[in-house]
Every structure is written in structure tokens, then in C-alpha cells.
């Protein structure tokens, strides 16, 4: 059986499945249940200065898609609304009882050195493995000059990280907000400040819908709505891209990453690890299904690693990063064509109408003796993949490479590129 232990910025855990800082990690009761279920670590729900914040009722919104609940999830909750002392006592007790699990403590205090120094001192006493600076929360706290209000200004990030590094021996993780035009600026700032790792993504600014009776953004609070943070399966592609950006950035090279965003299964986690992450944090999936999902995550990852011959997380961590390139580095000579497996085809016609109405008119709708038949017209097919995504039958449309024998040719080398710099040999 594969070794699932992970170590990230010196923080060790029996597996890479951690609960992200959020309601699942709000208090001892939840965290102990999570550890019993098998989670490798937690990032404690963000602590702030006393007096604790006060939350509204009606805190969550959701995007349900075609009968699937919570494809996207959103919240307008603030940081921990429990007294600081109580949280600290509980963290200390849990760490003592569960020494092998990773416990990071998420923090958010005003942008003043004294505030950070003070909270770091008391957190250190709990014996926690590290801290995560919450520069991500996009709602509520940002209006008070914290969370993403800091995370969107690289200089502030660098400054606060420096303070923290100066005032604690604990590893410092910096949790990044995706509500920026490029994730690299804040990530590089964190690195310059001396961060031991980055965690990303936090939630994305969002309104899940508009209540058309109340004419109010959702989730609604007594006739009004505020924007909230978006997460869940729908955000995974955004998170993957941002993780990949940092993983392949030369300025961030070697900066450990704890990945977050839409992780629900072992496969999601494996993808983030392949993209360079050292651990995988989960919030929405746990809030949807409970802690038990970790059981399949652990055995699923382990079985897949066994099958692939990976003995440890490090064996495949970052394996996809070198293949994450810019568009200009893609092979312009690569050619694929859609192929329909007629035995699997159920004749729904979706491939045809998608290609006919919106792509390249490359799937013919035929009738032989009244029976429907959909056939790819190779000469018209540009290999865009659309039909294979629209087809509801798994494996029915495959995209098959055409053997051209032509070499790998980037756009920069492509004679069709009007700005191509001719090669010496030409």
C-alpha cells in the first residue's frame, strides 16, 4: 500500500487530506470527529481579535445544477464567532490528543504589527503546527480592511508576512485570494516576505442568484443581499489553474503549496498534487456530505498510486507542472479527429446539433431505413472536442490522433505565423 504521508513546510500529516479553515474546523467537537473519520489535518477556523465577530442568519447560497445539489456554494460568514480563549484552549487540547495530525491555525487581525505579534504569541502556546494567514476572505472582513483587502495588495502581504516571520518560529502559510487579476503578484509577495507556504484558493466574489420575487441577490438577508465567497466543485478549474501558475513560476520555485478549491474526491486531490500541491484542503465537500468522504479519498488515492507504481506523494507531486505550458508552446501539427463508436451510440443527436449549430458542420445526421446514424465527416472535423463533451455516453466519442508524421511545431515555428522569426536553417 502506498505511503500517503505528506510533509509541507515542515508540517507533517498522515495523509494529504486536510479540512480547510471553515465551519468544519470551527471547534473541538468538529475537529475531533474529523480526526476520528481519518482526516490528516485541519486548518482551524480563522481566529481574530476579541470581541468575536457576529454573523447574520441566512449565510449560505448555492448553485444547484440539473438536479445536482451544491455544484457551487457561497457564504457570507465571517471568521470564528467564538471567544479567542475558548478556541485556543480547544486547539491545545486537540493537538495534545492527536499529535500525529497537522493542525494549522488560520489568523486574521487588523493590519498592524502589534496585533499580529500578540495573536502569534498565544497561538504558539497551543502547540499548533503552524499558522495560515487568511488574506482571502472576500466578504465582510474585507470591508473592515482585512482578508482580501490585504490579499489584493502585494505590498501589504509582504509586510504582514515579514512581521509574522519575525514574531514566530511556526511555519507561516499564506492563504491567497483568487479575486485578483494575476495570482502571481500576491504569491511572489508572500515568498518575498518569507512565507513558508501558500494555500489557495480562498473563495471567489459571487452572488449565487437573484430572488426574482424579492428582487434581491442571494443568499438574502431580510430583503437584501451582499456578495459572498464562492467555492465547491464549480471553482476547481480556477483553483487548478492558479496552483499551476505558482508551481511553474520561477520566482516561486520550491514554494510549497497547500491546494484548496472544489476538492471532493481522491482524484481531485491527485490532480492538485500532480500540479505541484503538497496537501489538499477541503471545505464544501465536507459541508455537503460530512467527514466520512475521507475514507474513500484515502483508499482511492492509495489504490490509484499502487496501480501507477507511485510509492509516495513525492513520487508524482508536480509531475504535470512541466506539461503546463503557454499556448505558444503547443504543437500546431497535432491532429485529432472525432470518432463515434456506433455500438455505444444511443442516437441522441447532441453531437450533431452541437457541431452543426455551433462548430464545424462535421457530423452528418443520416437515416438508413429510418434508423438514425451520426457520422463524423473527417474532412470537416477540426478536432475541437466539442462533440465528445456533449455526448452523454462515456467513451462513445473519442478523439483519435491522426498519424501525420510531422514534427512537434510551435506557433513560433509555424510558417502560418505572420510574426514568425525565420529560423537560421531556412
Amino acid at each position, binding site marked *: 500500500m502506498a505511503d500517503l504521508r505528506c510533509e509541507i513546510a515542515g508540517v507533517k500529516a498522515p495523509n494529504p487530506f486536510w479540512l480547510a479553515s471553515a465551519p468544519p474546523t470551527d471547534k473541538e467537537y468538529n475537529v475531533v470527529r474529523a480526526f476520528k473519520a481519518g482526516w490528516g489535518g485541519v486548518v482551524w477556523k480563522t481566529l481574530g481579535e476579541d470581541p468575536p465577530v457576529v454573523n447574520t442568519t441566512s449565510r449560505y447560497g448555492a448553485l444547484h445544477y*440539473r*438536479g*445536482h445539489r451544491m455544484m457551487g456554494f457561497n457564504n457570507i460568514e465571517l471568521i470564528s464567532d467564538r471567544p479567542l480563549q475558548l478556541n485556543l484552549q480547544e486547539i491545545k487540547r486537540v493537538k495534545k490528543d492527536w499529535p500525529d495530525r497537522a493542525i494549522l491555525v488560520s489568523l486574521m487581525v487588523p493590519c498592524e504589527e502589534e496585533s499580529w505579534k500578540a495573536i502569534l504569541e498565544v497561538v504558539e502556546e497551543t502547540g499548533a503546527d503552524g499558522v495560515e494567514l487568511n488574506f482571502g476572505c472576500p466578504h465582510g472582513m474585507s470591508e473592515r480592511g482585512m482578508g482580501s483587502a490585504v490579499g489584493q495588495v502585494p505590498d501589504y502581504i509582504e509586510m504582514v508576512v515579514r512581521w509574522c516571520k519575525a514574531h514566530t518560529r511556526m511555519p507561516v502559510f499564506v492563504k491567497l485570494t483568487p479575486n485578483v487579476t494575476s495570482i502571481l503578484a500576491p504569491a511572489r509577495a508572500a515568498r518575498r516576505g518569507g512565507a513558508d507556504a501558500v494555500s489557495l484558493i480562498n473563495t471567489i466574489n459571487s452572488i449565487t442568484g437573484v430572488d426574482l420575487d424579492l428582487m434581491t441577490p442571494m443568499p438574502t438577508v431580510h430583503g437584501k443581499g451582499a456578495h459572498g465567497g464562492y467555492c465547491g466543485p464549480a471553482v476547481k478549474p480556477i483553483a487548478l489553474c492558479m496552483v499551476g501558475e505558482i508551481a511553474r513560476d520561477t520566482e516561486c520555485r520550491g514554494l510549497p503549496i497547500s491546494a484548496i478549491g472544489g476538492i471532493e474526491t481522491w482524484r481531485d486531490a491527485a490532480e492538485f498534487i500532480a500540479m505541484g500541491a503538497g496537501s489538499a484542503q477541503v471545505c464544501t465537500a465536507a459541508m455537503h456530505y460530512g467527514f466520512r468522504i475521507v475514507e474513500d479519498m484515502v483508499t482511492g488515492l492509495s489504490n490509484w498510486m499502487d496501480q501507477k507504481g507511485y510509492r509516495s506523494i513525492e513520487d508524482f507531486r508536480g509531475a504535470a507542472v512541466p506539461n503546463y505550458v503557454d499556448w505558444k508552446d503547443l504543437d500546431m501539427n497535432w491532429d485529432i479527429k472525432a470518432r463515434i463508436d456506433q455500438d455505444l451510440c*444511443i*442516437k*441522441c*443527436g*447532441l453531437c*450533431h*446539433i452541437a457541431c452543426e449549430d455551433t462548430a464545424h458542420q462535421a457530423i452528418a*445526421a443520416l437515416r438508413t431505413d429510418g434508423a*438514425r446514424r451520426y457520422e463524423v465527416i473527417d474532412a470537416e472535423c477540426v478536432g475541437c472536442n466539442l462533440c465528445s463533451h456533449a455526448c*452523454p*455516453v462515456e467513451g462513445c466519442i473519442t478523439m483519435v490522433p491522426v498519424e501525420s508524421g510531422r514534427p512537434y511545431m510551435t506557433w513560433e515555428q509555424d510558417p502560418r505565423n505572420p510574426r514568425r522569426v525565420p529560423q537560421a536553417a531556412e
Partner: protein
Amino acid sequence: MGDAVDIRAGRLTPAEYDANFDELYPPLDRKRALVEASRCYFCHDAPCVEACPTSIDIPRFIRGIHTDNVAGAATTILEANIMGGACARVCPTEILCEGACVRTAQENKPVKIGLLQRYATDHLLESGTQPFTRAAPTGQRIAVVGAGPAGLACAHALARDGHDVVVFEKRPKGGGLNEYGIAAYKVPHGFAQKEVEFILGVGGIELRCGVALGRDIHLRDLRREFSAVFIGVGLGGVNVLGLPGEELAGVHNAVDYIARLRQADPASLPVGHDVVVIGGGNTAIDIAVQSRRLGATNVTIAYRRGASQMGATRHEQEVAQTNGVTIRHWTRPVRLIGEDDHVRAVELEYTQLGQTGRLMGTDDRFTLRADMVFKAIGQHLVPSALDGSVDLLEIERGKIKVNEDRMSSLDRVWAGGDAIGQGQDLTVQAVEDGKIAARAIHRYLMD
């Protein structure tokens, strides 16, 4: 035989009757409807649509349900099939839309089109809104004979086109077999009458009940007084066995008994202890299941061929079996045995296919006890209902002969429904016939 004939009403408690004659398939609530609607792929050139005799745009109406545009969904259905509500309940969907659904091919689990159709149409009917309007009056008057699915569908379409329609119906109520024939647990709670009211709600249709063609009115007069005539009289005659003992008390036509059942309180209907049903179509299944539900102890369907040759769909056969009906395949009656003029048993003979594929008796016989015997071996058109005009109205294979437009051999006379049907007689096909005829009549009148 020995024991007394045991035919009684009130075999069950009131609660049992209520349960037995309530909805066989409960409707979908909104949540279930949304989940089911989300299973539809929104196919292009959807096979389900092609399999629907009325060509309802199924992907479109299911999408409407999915987006909570339920009124739009219902209108889509009713535009194509004004009896979409009845059809949602009575169509043998497994051989129509659901049988063709691509999800049947994919995973043997079609989208539940029938239940979704019911969800949408119920919503509209219950809301009391009338989605249809009438075109400007044309001044043309059209006679429709028979207020069954064919006649009402035809009348509705013509009324929408601005014509005035008079529907002549022999029975006290409209609806045809929706009211008098379909199994009670498929259309309970007075649904058939609610649907008739909805159809008449468009305006321009006058329903005259208790008026029979051939008795009270005559085709010749109708043709004189109206611009066009549509005949949708269904099948009035019941096929006979032609066996000794058929005249005994306790031997009934299934359709007549069902008509009584549909109009009566089930608790007042006498049913036997031992019931034998002769036939293999849906009528046989319906009378067998309803006999069981009235409290009969032993109900046996005797069918002369095998399960796959039965007119009843596989699903209907399963319904019979889960209702405790025994189906004896490859058996046929040879005589009905009576005592004191009342049937007491049926003597049956095993059958087999001969060398040439013809059905033959084997002479291997057995006897089933029976206090009641139901004949369900098919119905036929009664030409006398057509008013002695048979000589003019051409008949083909026992049905009124029509062309593609449902026009008969008589000038300005169209026909549809079971009275012309050459295949399986279905409500949905009758509606389609009425619709096609109305279109043709409209074209004829407006040219």
C-alpha cells in the same frame, strides 16, 4: 360443482375499495419532477418525439419543467395533443415515447415522459387557465359524432380555427372510453370529465349528449345541415366466442362491465369468487386486475397464445401478475359449463402451433371453476350506428375506410379513432386522427 354461485358486492372494506381504485401511479411532486426532468438529454431529432403518435415536442416540454416554465411545458404538450392529460395516464409509454427514449438504449431506464407530461398538464388544468384562444369566426358549422378522444380532439382544433362545432354523443357524458372504458385506477377522481370541461372551455363547441347517430340523427341530415362531418364513434360491438354456454348468466362482455364499474361505486358491484377472463389484450388485463381489486379470490386470464403474442404490453402483463392474476398461456376455452342457467366452470384446452404455424388445439383439456366469465376478445365497428349509410361509407377490414387526411369515401365526411384504426387502438392515436382530420377539414373549408 356443489357449492353455491358466489357473486357478491361489498367483499372489501370501504378503505380497501378506496385504496384499490385510487391512482395506480402517484404523480410526481416538484422535486421529483425536477430530478426526472434533469435526466432528459434534450436530444436533437429526438426518437421519443417520433414514437409519439401526436409528435409532442418532448425535449422542449421537459426543458420547460426543468426551468419551472410549467405553463409553457403544458401548452407545448396540449398544442400537439389536447388530451395530453389523459394520454399521460393511459398511454402504454413503454411501447411509445419511453420505449424510444435514448436512455432506454443507454441504461434501460427511460426518462419518465408520461409522469412528466402529467406533472405539466395537471399543473395547467388545476390552475384553471385557458391557454387557447379562437380565431375569428368563420361562420362554418361542423358536426362531430362521438365525444371520445377522436371527436373531442377534432372539435377542439376546429373550434380554435374559428369554426362552430356541435358534438353528438350517444351516452350521457362525453369523454368516450376515457369515461367508460379505461381502467378506473388510471383515471380516478373524475379526471375524464375535468378534461372534457377543459376542452370545451375554449368555446365554440356544443356537446349534445344522449343523441345517437342512426337513432336520433342521420348522416344524410348532418351532411345537409353542416359544412363537414367527423365520425368518431369508436367500436360499439363486442366479439363473441361462439361457444356453447355463452348465453349463461355470469358470462359478461368485459367492456360493458368496465363501463358499469366506471360509473358505479365499486362497493356496489358484484364480483365472483372465481373469475375467468378470455383474451390477451389490455381489456383482458384491465378486467382481470379490476376483478381482483373488487375482491375476487381467483382470477385467471386464459390466452390462446404465448406471452410475447399478447396484445397487452409486457408492463401490463406485469401489472396483472403483481395484482395476483394468473395468466394461463396457450389455452383456449372449448365450452362454458353451467348449472341452473348460471356459469360454473370453463373447460379449456391446451393449444400449440402446428407445422404451418397455425394455432391448434391439443385435445388436452382441463376445467377452471368460474362464477363469472369475462369475454375480452376484441370489439368491432357496428355498421348500424353508421345509419345504414354503409353502402355509401366504404368499409375496409371492418373499419371505416379513410385516406391519409382521414377523409372517408363520402364527400365532406371524415372519420378517426378506433372506428378507422387498423393497428392497435389507442387513445393517443384517436387524438391524432381527430387532429389530422380537423386540419384537413379546415383546409377544405377555407380553400
